[in-house]
């Protein structure tokens, strides 16, 4: 609903109606000799601060600022392990290309009505490398009771450029993102392994700004684990979902069995990390450069997928 103040008082501030913005106003940059503006108006003290005594922080749970709980994540890994090993039988190539320290933006092709690739990638990297992976995803999850909470405790973070920047630049974490967005899993079976548009290249811009490499991963198997037979646009519109699928899983296992994945064999190939020779923390990066880089990564990922599919003898046995 559009917010409207009483008309007589909506005065010159008027951000109620100014463009897209319902913005809290930004005041002129502080002009104080104690502080000097750096990136985006952040301040740094000119004189070093006396080391303050740490103050008591009586935390009881291990939930971090992103909502992730390592304990819950470990439980999820323990429960998911058998699925990963025995159902999807995931096999990695080039796992050593994922940095063992420092931030990196991991990207992959996205598939299956309920995406099965994100848990496989996160589980695989966390088990093998012992590093946490934060999965950036559609914030729609967050609005669903219970699902949103579990998703966030299990390492899911709402896809917001600011969140990605903090995780990558300031905390040097591994971040997983699917540049296709919801268009990836929304493909029907006939469109499998055809990469969609990589958004507006936002992932490249984030990596440039954060000064971290992009590590692309090509995944096969996810497409066949829960393929979409058809989509019902009328229902998705009604429910305000990106898509509302009828999956082959529902056709085979019945409407309630639609949550069971087909045991497709997962193969994942890590490509060489892509680094950009641009300085981090810039206000803006060349749009054409961003689009070119994004397209280059997309083409490379698509070629890799074709290559892997050429070598795949069976959907179920790899």
């Amino acid at each position: 609903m559009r917010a409207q103040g009483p008309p007589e008082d909506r005065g010159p501030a008027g951000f109620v109606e100014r463009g897209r913005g319902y913005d809290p106003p930004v005041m002129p940059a502080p002009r104080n000799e104690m502080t000097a503006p750096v990136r985006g108006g952040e301040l740094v003290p000119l004189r070093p601060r006396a080391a303050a005594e740490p103050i008591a922080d009586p935390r009881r749970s291990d939930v971090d600022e992103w909502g992730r709980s390592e304990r819950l994540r470990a439980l999820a890994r323990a429960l998911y392990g058998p699925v990963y090993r025995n159902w999807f039988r995931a096999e990695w190539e080039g796992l050593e290309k994922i940095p063992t320290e420092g931030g990196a933006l991991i990207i992959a092709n996205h598939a299956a009505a309920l995406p099965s690739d994100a848990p496989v990638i996160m589980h695989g990297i966390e088990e093998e490398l012992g590093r946490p992976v934060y999965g950036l995803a559609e914030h729609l999850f967050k609005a669903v009771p219970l699902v949103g909470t579990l998703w966030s405790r299990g390492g899911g973070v709402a896809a917001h450029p600011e969140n990605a920047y903090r995780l990558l630049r300031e905390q040097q974490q591994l971040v997983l993102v699917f540049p296709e967005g919801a268009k990836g899993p929304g493909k029907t079976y006939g469109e499998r392994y055809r990469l969609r548009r990589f958004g507006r290249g936002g992932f490249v811009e984030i990596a440039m700004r954060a000064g971290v490499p992009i590590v692309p991963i090509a995944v096969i198997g996810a497409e066949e684990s829960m393929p979409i037979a058809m989509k019902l646009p009328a229902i998705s519109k009604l429910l305000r979902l990106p898509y509302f699928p009828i999956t082959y899983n529902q056709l085979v296992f019945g409407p309630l069995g639609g949550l069971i994945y087909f045991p497709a064999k997962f193969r994942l190939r890590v490509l060489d990390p892509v680094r950009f020779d641009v300085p981090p923390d810039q206000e803006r990066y060349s749009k054409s450069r961003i689009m070119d880089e994004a397209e280059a990564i997309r083409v490379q990922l698509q070629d890799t997928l074709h290559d892997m599919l050429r070598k795949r003898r069976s959907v179920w046995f790899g």
Partner: protein
Amino acid sequence: MGIGTFWGGRVAQALERDPDVEMIVGLGVEEPTVALERTEYVRADQSYSILARIVRATQVDTVVHTFLVVDSTRMTGRQLHEINVIGTMNLLAAASAADSPVRTLVVKSSGLVYGSTYRDPVWWREEMKRTQPPKTRVERSLLEVEGYLRDFADDNPHVCVSLLRFANVLGTDIETPITTALQLPLAPSVLGFDPLVQFVHEDDVVRSIEWVMRNQIPGVFNVAGDGKLPWSEVAAIAGKRQFPLSPILTGLAAAPLGMLRLVDLPPELLDLLRYGRGIDNRRLKATGFTYTYTSAGAVESFAEASRLRRTVGETRPAYRWERDVENFFSHSPAVVRES
């Protein structure tokens, strides 16, 4: 100094201790709720229309604006608009008059200006824009106020304008829907949601206002204790079990609590109990300010204080402001003053 409300009283108390502060004038709709030594108190109408006269007459150089209402359960939307928007307009008009002596203006706003939705980033920095239009009257009025303030800062570059946006405040002396909720036998929550929330201790509120005022630090600053914690953990620290409200039609589910006079949960708080909010406090810290409580620390301190109060009652005698008595102490030659 222009001062009103509980926060005004607390800030005035802090300033009274400083001999360099010559004079403190308090301005409020209601009588002060804290004991003040040498603050002159003036009772004003809701829209603070006498402000211009006071500013001219007393030649104040610093105005601390703490009367913005951020708790919408205290009054009707109309009144809230009157106080927040019209009151601020009068204040800014008085401060920007041609011969105005005002050189410092500190305004207490709220993290409510960022809203609380599922699209939000995990941390808000001061220059970020909210992701959804404001839904509630209190959020709209705060945004309007901040807009006027921005214009004021643009038009009056000689005035040091500081705008502080506070996270939810916890303290024994202040009553907000959150403090009320945390004193119920069961802490209300929304079923299936466990948002990350952030608090600031009331002492840090007063200290931060004093800090930006004394050091003349202009700009917008978030003020919140370090860290965020899930609501379930807040309940655990407070020693409460949760009382989950229905995730659909939550407003309707929360209404009986208000009718039973247990706790009035306004829509902006129900949003917070769903999606939480985190405001990045690093900009203020970079100016040298140090907090005395983290978010979890504020919860614990609050929980301990309310346990004590439950057991032994008020630890401090309740203060009632009486004009004649205060006038006597302030002005009578019979009172012995030091210095």
